[in-house]
Every structure is written in C-alpha cells, then in structure tokens.
C-alpha cells in the first residue's frame, strides 16, 4: 500500500518564476493538505482540499494556490517566487472525518535563488 507520494523531491527556481508541486494521497484518502516547513521551523498550514474545493486556508498570500483532481491527487502552485519561499513543502492526506490522522509525504525541497 503506497503512502503519500510527492514529486519532484528537489527543485531549484529563480525569483519571479512559478512552480508546481504534486501529491498523490495514500490509497483510500480523500483529503489533501499542504504545509510549508522553513529550515529549523515547524510546518505551517497552507491549505486543505476536499471534494476538489479549498476547504481551509492558512495565512498565506494568493500567490499560493492549489487544485485537487477527481482522483484526489493535488497540486500546489506558487507564483512570483520569493527567496523566502525556499522551504520543504509537505503534503498530507487523510479521510475527511474528524479523527482521521494525517499521513505525510517526504516533501519537496524548493530552493529559490
């Protein structure tokens, strides 16, 4: 049973560019959340998708957007990249029920130069 898979594992972009990160949830899960983990910090919640709609959003600017597909996979898009966007981006999947724990992928390491 495959867990949460993310691609790519590493990415280097230049300031001002746009990036798309991808996530496939654990089999059977229908909810996907994205987190940003800056170096030496805890993960920060970006947003959550369920039934192809954004259900919750953290304190991130509109440059961060996402999408969920009918097969429950998800994309995170970041426009107009800033140096401060350099971080590990983690995808987590779960069921929509209140007591369903989050299962995390290994993340995508984004470096903005």
């Amino acid at each position, binding site marked *: 049973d495959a867990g*949460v898979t993310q691609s790519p594992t590493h990415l280097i972009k230049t300031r001002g560019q746009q990036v798309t990160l991808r996530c496939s949830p654990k089999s059977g899960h229908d*909810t996907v*959340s994205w*987190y940003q983990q800056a170096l*030496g*910090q*805890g*993960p*920060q*919640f970006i947003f*959550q998708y369920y039934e192809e709609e954004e*259900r*919750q959003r*953290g304190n991130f600017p509109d440059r961060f957007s996402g999408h969920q597909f009918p097969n429950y996979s998800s994309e995170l898009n970041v426009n107009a990249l800033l140096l401060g966007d350099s971080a590990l981006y*983690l995808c*987590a999947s*779960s069921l*929509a029920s*209140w*007591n*369903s*724990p*989050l*299962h*995390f*992928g*290994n*993340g995508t390491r984004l470096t903005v130069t």
Partner: protein
Amino acid sequence: AQSVTQLDSQVPVFEEAPVELRCNYSSSVSVYLFWYVQYPNQGLQLLLKYLSGSTLVKGINGFEAEFNKSQTSFHLRKPSVHISDTAEYFCAVRVTGGGNKLTFGTGTQLKVEL
C-alpha cells in the same frame, strides 16, 4: 487562535537513559494533541495522539505522552532511548470543530549519544 510551545530546541541524552520532551499549548477551545517525528530528509510520522479518554496515551517505538489540561501540557516521554530515536520531534494541536488543520510547535531535536 491556538499556539504550541516546545521549550527545548535541542535535548541531548545518552543511550538507554530516559527522556522527556516538553510541549505546552494555548487555545480558547478544546483541542486534540499529537506528536510527530521527522527523520532527516523525510516527512513526518505520527507517534501518538490524544483525542479523548485516558490522559495517558501510548504510541509507537515505546513513546508515551500525558495530557494535562490544567497545565495545558502534553509532554512526550520514553523510559530508555536508543540511537535510532535521534530525530526532530514536533508537537501539534488541532482545535475541535476546526477541520484537519494542525498547528505545530517549532520542534525539539533529540540527539541520542553513546
């Protein structure tokens, strides 16, 4: 808004010694509490969770934590650590009725030495 404080950024300990990683939270509503572990270049793995019921919860790899509502704490303990426990540990909270969003602390680096 809720917040999580992990007072110790680093905890060095010798192998086979006991360890406690501290976590305090702040919230105006009831919360669920979690501990996650992160090994280098990996994602987060759930160690244990408190949702309701017994305040002492046991998790994987011999870890346990106790929910103390009066002190708003959820400290993680292990009676005897192993070299393989060296990792970053994160405490997190989720408010009741707040969906699946987790608020994490800044993490504690546990370094187990021989």
